[in-house]
């Protein structure tokens, strides 16, 4: 009935595993997993747009909108319930994307990239001027509560981690479902040939608009989760460098599978941490070299590494 495919089954099975890892792994690793889930969702949003040939260099816009919406709900309206915060973050992102979508759906390729970048930078400019929101320093977000339950100390950490894992993986599973659905197939077709799509009897603009809204909602969710993990939001979230990172993560991880960007975000984070540790002054150079090597030797992203192994494993079993 549910018709789950392997990715979905694994994502769902991954929820308890990930939660369990939260108790087993050292806390700092769990921390990186937690923040990677937040930013990973945004990379995922970039990736599903990339599947339709749309490269968003401004996905930070919705990452930031989500984080700020939740933060402002906490700061000005005293909302601390995580479920309400998540919903607010997603709804505000969805609404903004619905409006902006009418403009963006007409654009493709580099123009889509640059226009989405421009929109995100306009928000950056606005937030940097708003002293009531702490300008470029941003502001802090209090710890969330869970339907009235307000844990403290280590319990709070675990609760938030669990509350991050579940929506993040569920969201990934839903996105996987979306990619398999007729609408997802249309997205794929969009990248290849819009004329044919129109001649088949469906609207390419509408498909782009829908995809854009989905991506925004997911990014908004990522923004809320990330902001809660950090306890702080600032306009850097919508700076182009942040958006650029999302694009790079999704290219580096590969667009082949939903899991790739989530996983890739974490790996990249760990690589960065060790690059900083190994050479605090020239870690960017190390990162750049690793990126170049990845592109040269793994043009389809890190995920192809796993894919290749899988393929050779299948060959051996067939023999």
């Amino acid at each position: 009935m549910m018709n789950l495919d392997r990715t979905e089954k694994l994502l769902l099975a991954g929820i308890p595993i990930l939660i369990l890892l939260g108790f087993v792994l050292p806390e700092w690793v769990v921390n990186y997993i937690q923040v990677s889930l937040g930013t990973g969702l945004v990379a995922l949003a970039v990736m599903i747009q990339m599947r339709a040939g749309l490269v968003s260099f401004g996905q930070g816009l919705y990452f930031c909108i989500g984080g700020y919406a939740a933060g402002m709900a906490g700061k000005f309206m005293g909302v601390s319930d995580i479920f309400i915060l998540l919903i607010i973050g997603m709804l505000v992102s969805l609404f903004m994307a619905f409006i902006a979508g009418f403009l963006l759906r007409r654009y493709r390729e580099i123009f889509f990239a640059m226009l989405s970048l421009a929109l995100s930078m306009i928000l950056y400019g606005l937030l940097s001027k708003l002293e009531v929101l702490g300008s470029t320093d941003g502001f802090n977000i209090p710890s969330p509560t869970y339907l009235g339950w307000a844990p403290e100390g280590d319990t709070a950490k675990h609760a938030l981690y669990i509350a991050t894992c579940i929506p993040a993986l569920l969201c990934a599973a839903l996105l996987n479902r979306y990619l398999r659905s007729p609408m997802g197939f249309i997205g794929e077709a969009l990248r290849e040939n819009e004329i044919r799509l129109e001649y088949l009897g469906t609207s390419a603009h509408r498909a782009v608009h829908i995809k854009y809204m989905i991506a925004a909602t997911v990014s908004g969710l990522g923004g809320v989760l990330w902001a809660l993990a950090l306890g702080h939001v600032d306009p850097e979230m919508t700076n182009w460098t942040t958006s650029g990172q999302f694009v790079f993560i999704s290219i580096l991880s590969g667009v082949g599978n939903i899991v790739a960007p989530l996983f890739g975000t974490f790996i990249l984070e760990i690589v960065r941490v060790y690059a900083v540790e190994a050479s605090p002054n020239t870690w960017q150079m190390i990162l750049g070299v690793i990126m170049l090597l990845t592109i040269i030797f793994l043009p389809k992203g890190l995920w192809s590494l796993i894919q290749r192994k899988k393929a050779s494993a299948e060959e051996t079993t067939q023999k």
Partner: protein
Amino acid sequence: MFQDRLLKKGLLASVMASAFVVSAFSSSAVAEDKKEVKLGVVTFLSGGAAGPFGIPARNAAELLIDAINKGQLPGAYSSVGLAGAQIAPIFVDENSKQKVADYKKLVQKDEVDAVIGYISSGSCKAIAPVAEEEKKLTVFFDCGTSQVFEDIITSPKYVFRTSAHATMDNVAAARYVVDTVKDVSTYSGINQNYAFGQDSWRDFSGSMKVLKESAKSVSEQFPKVFAGQYGAEISALLTKKPDIVHSSFWGGDMEALVIQGGGRQLFSRSKVVLTGGETGIERLGSQIPDGTIIGARGPNGPLAEDSALNDWFVKAYVDRFKSLPTYPSYHMAQAILGVKSAADKANSTDQAATIEAFKGLEFEVPSGKISMNLAGGHQATQGTAFGTYKFDKASGKGTLVNIKRYNAACVNPPEGMKSLEWIESGFKGAVCK
């Protein structure tokens, strides 16, 4: 078709990777006898703030840690190590999107005994509550926002700040202007368009309103941080002809403003106040027009009073890095000496004892004396000074003349009062000597 295979491998790999991470990097070597103290040092090592702030601060940290480990410091600091323990620093780049996770990694994985760091106010805001949560002694050495102890953690236990917040600079700048410049009827500002620049202008213009009611602001320029090109802003300031131009520019932006503004007579037509101008003195030399009012975010560098400690610091820094220490270096030195004073006073590197000793501590630093007397003994106050630039052709070096010193209580709000309220109240409770 849409490549939805091979998940098992993926998940397995991720579990294995995590397992690898755990086994390889969490090897916990907890030594109870503290022969060595691990110190996390976080400053900008890349990005635009690295050159003017991060690197001078890192240099000072390296210099002082080496000297402390070898017992080479003069006077009261001559004992070896922190209460006898050697310091092992771990440097981390503040230029990261995951500052909080990086901080937690320092605390949990690297098991540092204390963290000294953070230049950006945004970082301090984000880190402060986490430090309290992690229960780790954390000393902010440079960030300027007054909000850390006013709004974010009002009763700190683990967080200290050994530099005065930025309010002091701009209040003192306004006092200096009023004290030394006759006939101020108009003033204007050019500040970077981000929190520090906006706050600086707010404090300066607020202070001017109190100190010189008759004067009015005629232009407020807010170029983007790191813009580098200020042609249009300079034109706008020139057309408004203000008596005073206030700028909290720092680093490369400040130097660019001096080069471009100096070339177009902005500095001779208006009196320019550079609250962070000190870092440019060595490099710009004769390019800074005489008469420019210069501050150093505290009595640092050429504004420092003579002392054995300052002489040692300047000499050792110049010997090692071939350039003069600037105020970020002074701020870093303050933080490290603060920790050393506290540990020595407690005669222990135990965190609780050190914190207890740190609270309300008074200690000597190259720039004079620091009193930890705000926010329950966690926030430093210090007097400050401003001076007027004069280039000495004979020696080819710039100096500051007509230096005016302002004692701490004159330019810092009293305990329990927020900076902005204090300024707007007309500096209620200020005691100026």
